């Protein structure tokens, strides 16, 4: 009986070590200043911006940031150290910004390439749950998923609200690409996640 209990304990412990929640503890540390942008023009980046303001994190919020912005910041002598790209598309947002999902993907690919060139850490984030997934989009519209594919597999770490991973989409990317995944349940927990990521 004791032997069985010991085995069970080992199995549970192993599960904990490899669970997404544990990834939060072994996460990548990020540095400031941060460039916060979007791939899909959803309101998601605004949620991170609100917490950045409260935490006093040095950031630039530009939902249409281009690779040139990273280069310009370096020329100023204050290079960005990390890039957060919030995925999930809004047809309303893209319409207002007069961009297509293809243009968004092209812009973010160039951003990631420049960030890599400068040694910045890249964070792929999804913070609006299943409503900002293909299930919440207009019939035939797959722009949410396209934005995820453009960013998340190329990132150093992913930060995702748990209900957006209902179908294990982000867990699959995390496991397949060995990218740490930080899941949070409540919106307000995002504050602690960001605080931990940017803690010196």
């Amino acid at each position, binding site marked *: 009986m004791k032997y069985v209990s010991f085995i069970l304990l080992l199995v549970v412990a192993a599960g904990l070590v490899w669970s997404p929640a544990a990834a939060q503890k072994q996460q990548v540390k990020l540095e400031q200043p941060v460039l916060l942008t979007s791939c899909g023009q959803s309101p998601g980046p*605004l949620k991170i911006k609100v917490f950045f303001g409260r935490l006093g994190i040095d950031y630039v919020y530009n939902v249409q940031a281009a690779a040139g912005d990273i280069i310009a910041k370096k020329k100023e002598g204050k290079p960005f150290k990390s890039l957060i790209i919030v995925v999930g598309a809004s047809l309303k*947002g893209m319409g207002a910004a007069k961009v297509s999902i293809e243009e968004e993907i092209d812009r973010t690919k160039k951003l990631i390439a420049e960030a890599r060139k400068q040694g910045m850490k890249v964070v792929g984030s999804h913070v609006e749950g299943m409503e900002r997934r293909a299930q919440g989009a207009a019939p035939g519209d797959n722009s949410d998923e396209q934005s995820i594919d453009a960013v998340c597999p190329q990132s150093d770490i992913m930060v995702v609200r748990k209900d957006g991973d209902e179908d294990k989409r982000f867990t699959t990317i995390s496991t397949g690409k060995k990218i740490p995944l930080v899941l949070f349940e409540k*919106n307000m927990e995002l504050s602690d996640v960001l605080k931990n990521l940017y803690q010196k």
Partner: protein
Amino acid sequence: MTPMIRKLVFGFAGLALLVFSGISFYQSRRLKEPVVVSDGVTQVVRLSKYFSGVEGTANDCNMYILEGKEPGATFCILGGTHPEEPAGRLAAWIFAENAVLQKGRLIVVLSANRSATTVTRVGGAYPPEFSIPTSWGEQGFRMGDRWSNPLDQWPDPEVYIHYPSGQYLAYVDVRNLNRCWPGRPNGTLTERTTYAFMEMIRKEKVDIVIDLHEAELQYPVISTIVSHEKAQDLAAIVSMTLTDMEGFKMGMEFSPKNLHGLSHREIGDFSDAAGLLFEAPEPFLDATRGKTNTEQLLTGKDDFVVRAGQHGLLFEKIDANGWPIDKRVGRHTSAVLQTMVSWTEMHPDKPMVCDSIPRYADVVARGLGQYLRNPALAKPGRIWYE
């Protein structure tokens, strides 16, 4: 049956239909909806106070003004922009009949497009009225429509050209209050109404205008806050807090800069105030609905809409429990209260503190009828009619 008798039978049947429908229409148009104002209401004024161009029209609506013991921000709640979305009107009703302000000022409108409360969808077979059960009996409300009554504004143009953007909109939206912002003084009745509201917003130095709506489940902008860029941080924090704390999900969308006539766009562009629009789910508005009756309107239960969801055609969940009116109204009261709380956290020098309003859980548990006051017990001078 001879041809003459047949003609007479059909003639009398047609006449009877005309009489019955005429009586129904007359009664509905003149149904008096009592408002027993809260002790917190310090003034009731007409919209024409701010612009005489609506004086004597169907849209010279009441405005209930509540003042706190301490100064602070000024909020305005618009109910009845689209009267066929009753949760917006009823949530505003709860504020007018129950709210007590500690800090700040609140202006509550129950029939923003009063003309639209006097008609239902032509050819839509909508019920003319509906009733909400209370502990003292039932309170009746006009069903209303999305557009101003053609009896008050007619004819419609071939194409509606929005002023001042010049954007082309659907012809019928010339009577849609939420496509006519910011209005103009010499325009149609609906444009003069929004112009009068803009004058009120500017003169009363309103900080936040909250426009309460409902949406069909087949419409992507649902269960959400639509925000002008001036209030985006506020909307983001309200959306996150409601989703975390209240037991319902509330999203957030940006107000598109290039879509004109909407309150959340034009109020922010043409005044110092910021506009927010809240959407709750209303299966009654879905094109795939089954019976168009008061039961469907108030319970939000509809097998056909559920089936549409099973085919992946909806943007909000629905099951056999439907979307009862208590849930829809409770979403709005909680969202308004949370906006006040979050605003106060962000602007401690300009607070907005409101008491005696039930949150979502309270409205769902007790029923909204619990918060409608008995006109028979109203103190003199404390009862008004919409």
